[in-house]
């Protein structure tokens, strides 16, 4: 799309994000059915209420309301004194009542924001228009010419978080979503699992010329669905932006439509045009009283707010002198941050120590985590055999020169597999570092004797061979030689 690149500066991308997040509650939004439907046989987590049988009535799940208020508070939003559930009427087989109960005119929370960090380290504020509560639909499974409806998911609490149209690049959309997911996980209100459908993103994408912007006008919005990862969201926005600019540059008009994301071909495809759009005929749900939230309730919930990612990152950087980029990685997943803080507590906060821990966690430890279990899920850190204090103990062994860096890596691998204390491993495997120069000298003597040719070449000026000799020494001492001592002795002997 070379043509687009040349005109892209004439346009501004405008994206608003709708995120649906399943609320982590034990029971459904309006009945007492369990929400643990993953893997359950179809239609086994159902009752007269969520089956939409004639006659039953909904009852509001207090835990879901509290999760939504907590989310609103974490997103700096105003908590409504009165929220009202409404009926959103439409017909679909996975919607058993023929309407979805959803907050419409009076949502639980409004007017919030979150901050995203940009490449240059500066922050941008993305407005949050509203956070409201509703119920999930069931699922339709298509097999051959038949469709099957599973209502296990019907009625699971769902939070909808709607951003303002403050996102102006695919990268910012990605940052917004990762930040939002991190906050939701910190609050414990959502699992963040996109692949399981617990988190769903629908960007509204439009472009406008700078002239339009000056006049306060917007372009036609295209909503994209079926996005199964944040990466897909970023790609879809990038694709749509370019498609819309191309269309406009070619003299065409952008239609207000719903598109789906075709992951395989990395393109958007038309799903529904505006002519088919629904009139949802919202009206207040007569079966439910308004949700009144008094100040005392809000304050009690504010007390429950955990330290949020931004504050945590600032603390790592300001109090512990951890590099900003490392801090960002550590706070991204709350369980990782918890692990890190546990290790710091055991290891100490003296200068350089938290950063050394950060290096180890984001390096060796993450490598082991990624290689383990299913994929890239850092939340596995909570289930490893290794305790934070054991990592601290390992680093302390290296600091005390009991083992060297390479041995430490080896010990960590054993710890990861067995859960043993590092000291016990070092003891049993005989891995303690050799700094006794007589042992090192002995090894050097043998190596120089066996490699006369290389020695001559080195002394003839081929200094690159230092590494070869160093490697031989480490091999001869089974890696236990204190590298600093070995280097010093070797240098002395070679330069004789």
């Amino acid at each position, binding site marked *: 799309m070379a043509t687009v690149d040349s005109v892209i500066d004439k346009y501004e991308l405008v994206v608003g994000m709708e995120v649906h997040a399943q609320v982590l509650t034990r029971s459904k939004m309006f009945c007492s059915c369990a929400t643990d439907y993953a893997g359950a046989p179809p239609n086994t987590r159902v009752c*007269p209420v969520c089956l939409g*049988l*004639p*006659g*039953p009535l909904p*009852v509001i799940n207090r835990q879901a309301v509290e999760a939504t208020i907590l989310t609103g508070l974490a997103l700096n939003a105003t908590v409504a004194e009165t929220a009202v559930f409404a009926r959103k009427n439409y017909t679909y*087989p996975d919607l058993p009542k023929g309407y979805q109960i959803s907050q419409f005119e009076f949502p639980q929370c409004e007017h919030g924001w979150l901050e995203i960090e940009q490449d240059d380290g500066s922050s941008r504020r993305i407005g949050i228009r509203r956070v409201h509560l509703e119920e999930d639909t069931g699922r339709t499974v298509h097999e051959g010419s038949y469709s099957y409806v599973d209502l296990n998911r019907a009625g699971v609490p769902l939070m909808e978080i709607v951003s303002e149209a403050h996102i102006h690049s695919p990268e910012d959309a990605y940052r917004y979503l990762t930040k939002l997911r991190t906050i939701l996980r910190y609050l414990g209100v959502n699992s963040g699992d996109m692949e399981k459908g617990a988190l769903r993103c629908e960007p509204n994408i439009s472009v406008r010329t700078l002239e339009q912007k000056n006049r306060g006008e917007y372009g036609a919005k295209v909503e994209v669905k079926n996005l199964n990862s944040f990466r897909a969201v970023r790609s879809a926005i990038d694709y749509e932006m370019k498609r819309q600019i191309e269309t406009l540059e070619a003299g065409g008009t952008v239609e207000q439509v719903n598109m789906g994301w075709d992951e395989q071909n990395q393109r958007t495809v038309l799903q529904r045009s505006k002519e088919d759009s629904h009139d949802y005929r919202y009206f207040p749900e*007569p079966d439910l009283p308004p949700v009144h939230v008094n100040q005392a309730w809000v304050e009690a919930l504010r007390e429950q707010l955990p330290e949020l990612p931004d504050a945590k990152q600032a603390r790592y950087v300001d109090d512990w002198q951890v590099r900003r980029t490392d801090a960002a990685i550590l706070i991204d997943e709350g369980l990782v941050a918890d692990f890190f803080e546990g290790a710091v507590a055991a290891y100490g906060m003296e200068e350089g120590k938290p950063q050394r821990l950060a290096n180890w966690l984001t390096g060796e430890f993450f490598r082991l985590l990624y290689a383990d279990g299913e994929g890239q899920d850092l939340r596995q850190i909570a289930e490893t055999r290794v305790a934070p204090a054991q990592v601290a103990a390992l680093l302390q062994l290296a600091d005390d020169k009991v083992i060297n860096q390479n041995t430490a890596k080896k010990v960590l691998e054993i710890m990861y597999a067995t859960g043993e204390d590092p000291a016990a491993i070092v003891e049993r495997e005989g891995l303690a570092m050799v700094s006794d120069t007589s042992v090192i000298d002995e090894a050097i003597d043998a190596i120089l004797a066996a490699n006369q040719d290389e020695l001559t070449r080195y002394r003839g000026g081929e200094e690159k061979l230092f590494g070869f000799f160093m490697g031989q020494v480490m091999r001869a001492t089974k890696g236990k030689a204190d590298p600093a001592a070995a280097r010093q002795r070797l240098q002395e002997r070679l330069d004789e």
Partner: protein
Amino acid sequence: MNLYELTIQEALDGMDRGDFTAVELTADLLGRIGAVEREIQSFLTVTGELALAQAARADARRRQGDASPLLGIPLGIKDVLSTRDVETTCGSKILKGYVPPYTATSVKKLEAAGMVMLGKTNTDEFAMGSSTENSAYHTTRNPWNLERVPGGSSGGSAAAVAAGEALGALGTDTGGSVRQPASFCGVVGLKPSYGRVSRYGLVAYGSSLDQIGTLTKDVRDAALLLNVIAGHDPRDSTSLPDATPDYRTALTGDVRGLRVGVPAEYFIDGIEPDVEQAVREAIAQLAHLGAEIIPVSLPNTDKAVPVYYMIATAEAGANLARFDGIRFGYSAGADRLMDNYRQTRGEGFGPEVKRRIMLGTYVLSAGYYDAYYGKAQQVRTLMKQDFEDVFSRVDVIACPVSPTTAFKIGEKSDDPMAMYLADVFTLSLNLAGMCGISVPCGLDAAGLPIGLQLIGPHLGEEVILRTAHAYEQSTNFGLSVGGLAAASRRHVAG
């Protein structure tokens, strides 16, 4: 005297004395049903075997000293209330064959109190109507005159009680559906305040208006049944947490000093002279008993019909969306989804239900919401304020239930507007959430019953029961149980 002629209280006393058992009583009621049901057609389902089994259990419980308040009392249940393992059709074809897996809270409470369920009573389809002519199955006949309607939508329940086919029954009242058939059939019909009785398991028509009520032979029985069904239900968020009194203690027989409001707007052109005269005499009788009669005004009464038909139908349209022919009830069995929706609903719903779904869809549609549904809600608030104003000055309001006595079958069925307008005296208090009772106050020249309506404030059940009871005790219209049964016998026999 036949056992089926007894009131609930009399039957309880008889069983307590050991004069007869619940099985004998139930067998007598089933015998009465066998004798007259062919002509009256109060029931959609008669659960004879279940009833006898429940009666036997009730007898066993009584022998063990159980003193539950309705032990062995045979009742009818309107077919819009969900009953586990017993077909529940709402008088609609679309629910033909639907056997619910759960029981409505109100019915459960009756069962726990020892009720014997005789069966499910006829109703206008989804409680939409004033005559039972909208039932997809059959029209119930008025026991006082078989050519007349019993009123509706709880016409089956009212006729069953009037004809001696049940000692009492549950009905539902969205815009008068308990009080109007009670008035037409000469029985007592109580509509409690919105939120007093759990709606869980009531197949919703107009959710913000629906309330379960009772049809009984006298006021004492109404208090007895209300004692059992009233109260908070955690499954119904609109049910009220307020404690429920023993409503029988309200039946003092004393209305001295009671302030009775008489609203000018309820005595309008079009009211039958016999009805107006009977109601005015009843009010005079209350004065005679020591009540103070105070003229009052409910100025927004004339807006009740349009406001009701916008709010009730909007809610109904959504409530009936779940009948899609997939999970339960009737399915047309078309191959394609949209065809199946259209055919199932096209064939399953009757014309009145379709009319109200269309109306309800229209008043909520984009661009019309504010002008119709939104405006209707505003007027509803005004109507509520009218009632609150009046109840700041009076204890109870007295007025007619219906402008007419029971009309002929088929007389209005082609004229929905005439049918809607006939509900003008009963709709307002549903919109305002107040309570009301219909108590017999005489017969017209054709020998058809007339009802006096007593309206109380929100949670004012005690005052309307007290007033109705005092009035009932002081009059002698031949509307006693024996008279009722005789009347029904006469007409059934003829």
